[in-house]
């Protein structure tokens, strides 16, 4: 067994751990850091439930080795709400629009859409749909998720004014 010492910054907090080289980032978050918000739906990079932000960019935690995340900043669903516990604008929009049913794909949806809104506060519906093609949902039929993203974009634009 091949172990390596890594230091990762997850949701703003530093963690140092010894990990086996083959442990995926998803399993590291879930098993070593007890951050079970990142979900495993397929472990081959298609469903997107494991999506996190790695140095600000969306990435599949099931296709990343924990050792590769050494010195990296990771944002998971647990890190999206504000420090005082209030939900982010996007999370609130999901609640308002019924953008989740079973909630299993939701972590990936939120991180992916966080990246989108970080880059583009005026996405078209088409752009929103395209952004989440890498996130499968079996419950909602996507419509409420799209509406939540557009509502969040609107609210964030209004906040800027």
């Amino acid at each position, binding site marked *: *067994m*091949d172990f*390596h010492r890594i230091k990762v910054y997850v949701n703003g907090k530093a963690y140092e751990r010894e990990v*086996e*080289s*083959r442990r*995926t980032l998803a*399993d590291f978050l879930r098993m070593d850091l007890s951050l079970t918000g990142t979900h495993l739906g397929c*472990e*081959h*990079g298609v469903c*997107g439930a494991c*999506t996190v932000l*790695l140095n600000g*960019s*969306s*990435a*599949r935690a*099931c*296709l*990343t*080795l924990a*050792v*590769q995340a050494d010195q990296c900043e990771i944002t998971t669903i647990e890190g999206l709400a504000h420090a005082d516990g209030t939900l982010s604008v996007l999370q609130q929009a999901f609640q308002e629009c019924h953008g989740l049913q079973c909630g299993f794909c939701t972590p990936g949806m939120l991180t*992916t859409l966080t*990246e989108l809104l970080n880059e583009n506060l005026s996405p078209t519906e088409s752009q929103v749909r*395209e*952004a989440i*093609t*890498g996130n499968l949902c079996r419950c909602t039929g996507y419509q409420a998720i799209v509406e939540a993203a557009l509502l969040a974009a609107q609210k964030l634009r209004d906040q800027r004014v």
Partner: protein
Amino acid sequence: MKPAPFIYHRPQQLSEALDLVAQLDNYKIIAGGQSLMPMMNFRFVMPDHVIDLNQVTELNHISKENQQLHIGSMTRQQAIYSSALVQEHIPLVSQAYSFVSHRQIRNRGTFGGSLCHLDPSSEQPCFTAALDGVIEVASQSGKREIPIAHWTAMYMTPDLAPNEIMLGAKLSIWPKTHGWSFMEYSRRHGDYAIVGVAVLVNLSVASTIERISIALCGIDAAPVRLLNTESALINQAADESAIRMALGDIEKLPNIMEDALNTSDYRRHLAKTLTRRALLEAFERAKKRIS
């Protein structure tokens, strides 16, 4: 679905990486990991060693030298997609990346990873073929260059020795007047192409074809260039008869790959359909740029 055990190596420089590939048996290079990790998770591959090139930053670059765009093997696909340099000089590549997978995959996936994985359906070897790409590889003993036409040794296997690492590729920049198009058919957005086509065309002032390049993916192990059509179309009009010539060439392709999900007949038909659409788009773009 967890990988089998391996020893992990993280070279900080190219020379270190070259030493490792010279010494180790049964290794795999992890670049973006978007193709390798699924295979390891399924245990389709079980390397004893994994060499991570993500710290070898000298392989991550996009630069223009003369009439070529030089892309390093560890350059992220998303970086190439959003590169202003690429959009300006090789817009074909920007259009191609709009079909490549999904944002999360492109954020990590690398150009070199795709070229070395060599999936017949992949867009990146296809546009590299259209652009007469030249691939640069290195070993401890030095560098060598391999034109894309010789890059595929066999199905999903490049002409890369075990002690070699791909450094990058040089892609030809066409004149500012050129037209281009990348078309593909996939079942859903971002899926692997069943068939894809890359077209580049340069027209004379009289709208005749000075030069044309047509490359197809999803047809064979290596991207297929329609070389007969390309030479026959020089000085011909960029019109319906040119299209029909290309389709005739496709009709005559001897071996089109087939699998349980897509027949060779279907691929051939898709190739013809998409080539027609790509030629029309490329011609229109070229005509606009001339005028």
